[in-house]
């Protein structure tokens, strides 16, 4: 379990990191918390000869709360997300989801940037960010651009990020109303068998805004447009919740793996999605 040799870099600015990546092209990879990349390197599934450690880049750290928006630096760890009291008030769904990621040790190291940028369908933050309609800020040699979380994921481990770009931060509007991130996993530290993030806003008995996204139920996270359309404008009755749940399950496309066959995944997905919708309605 020893990875292949590489040269190690620890730049202290984003520009410095991009210079190294541009110089070495696909031979270089950035490392954030390393808890996805190092296991892949040990298995020799990640092949690189230059490792660019982002830990010293202070521009990539921190959580900024403005009146309507939240900006989270890519190198912010799950532990920092969980223990940030103001963030827990403004966006409690982040806290609820982050607490269900991996285990305490991994959460001290694992970062939100690594979690969303890696493109692993098992990661929880991509689905959550689609639920929140977050924007990802990418910086490369040609400047800065923004990609919506809902447009970022192309296939497992393939994203809209170009090789010489770094995902530097994530930004989203502070969510209002009810929320829930529901996850079924076999054991602590495992990825989700099925997970769903839901936001619901209610006014005068009607749903004025809804959002649903799924984790690990396809090669990419899934934003469930049809289910959202069913909920939005409805009275959120039991029939509506059932219809939205079915629509979300139909939007999923899980594969068979050691967590079970496709039918089982869809069965778990249906339970998880319904619970998430119901809990979000309760809290709305």
């Amino acid at each position, binding site marked *: 379990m020893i990875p292949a040799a590489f040269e190690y870099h620890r730049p202290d600015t984003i520009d410095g990191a991009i210079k190294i990546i541009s110089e070495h092209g696909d031979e270089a990879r950035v490392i954030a918390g390393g808890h996805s990349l190092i296991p892949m390197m040990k298995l020799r599934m990640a092949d690189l000869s230059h490792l660019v450690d982002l830990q010293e880049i202070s521009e990539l750290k921190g959580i900024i709360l403005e009146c309507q928006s939240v900006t989270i630096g890519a190198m912010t760890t799950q532990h920092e997300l969980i223990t940030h009291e103001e963030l827990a008030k403004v966006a409690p769904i982040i806290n609820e989801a982050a607490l269900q990621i991996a285990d305490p*040790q991994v959460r001290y190291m694992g970062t939100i940037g690594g979690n969303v940028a890696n493109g692993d369908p098992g990661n929880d933050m991509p689905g959550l960010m689609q639920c929140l309609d977050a924007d990802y800020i990418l910086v490369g040699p040609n400047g800065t651009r923004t990609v919506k979380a809902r447009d970022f994921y192309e296939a497992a481990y393939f994203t809209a990020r170009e090789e010489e770009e770094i995902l530097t931060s994530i930004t989203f509007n502070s969510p209002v109303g009810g929320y829930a991130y529901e996850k079924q996993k076999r054991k602590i530290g495992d990825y989700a068998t099925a997970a769903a993030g839901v936001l619901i806003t209610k006014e005068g008995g009607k749903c004025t805004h809804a959002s649903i996204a799924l984790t690990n139920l396809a090669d990419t996270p899934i934003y469930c447009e049809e289910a959202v359309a069913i909920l939005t404008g409805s009275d959120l009755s039991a029939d509506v919740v059932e219809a939205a749940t079915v629509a979300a399950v139909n939007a999923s496309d899980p594969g068979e793996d050691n967590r079970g066959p496709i039918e089982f995944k869809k069965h778990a997905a249906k339970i998880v999605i319904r619970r998430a919708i119901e809990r979000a309605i309760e809290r709305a």
Partner: protein
Amino acid sequence: MSKMHIKMKVNGEEVETLAEPRELLIHVLRERLDITGPHIGCETSHCGACTIDMDGKSVKSCTVFAAQANGKDITTIEGLGDPDNLHILQEMFKEHHGLQCGFCTPGMITRAHRLLQENPNPTEDEVRFGMAGNICRCTGYQNIVKSILAAANEMNAAKEAAQ
């Protein structure tokens, strides 16, 4: 690939060693620095036997490169207590049979130490949640949880007595 100079503070002492960047921190601690308290269980960041404290965080040292740890302040089980002067957690693990084979214990105690630093008065549920990254294959966890809760009580009592 050339070796790099790694400087760390380990258990309060400045140490320097040469290591390839790809060497894992657990290997550098055990094989280059002769600090064999942290164990290698799964080497895949699941079991927690290699848990150390790095800059105030509980970290699985099998999933950190030596190069990443350059400049860090590290505490291992050796830094918490020694046979003549056991840490209260070690004392309580002994008292409450918190171990059988003992292989997971250094990681358990190092993790529990950080947990109690952050939450000096945890509930049983909080202990179980906070210890979820450490696996024991002997004890069924009951006595580990009991040991940690007892250590929390002792530490709080000692703090109160001091005031």
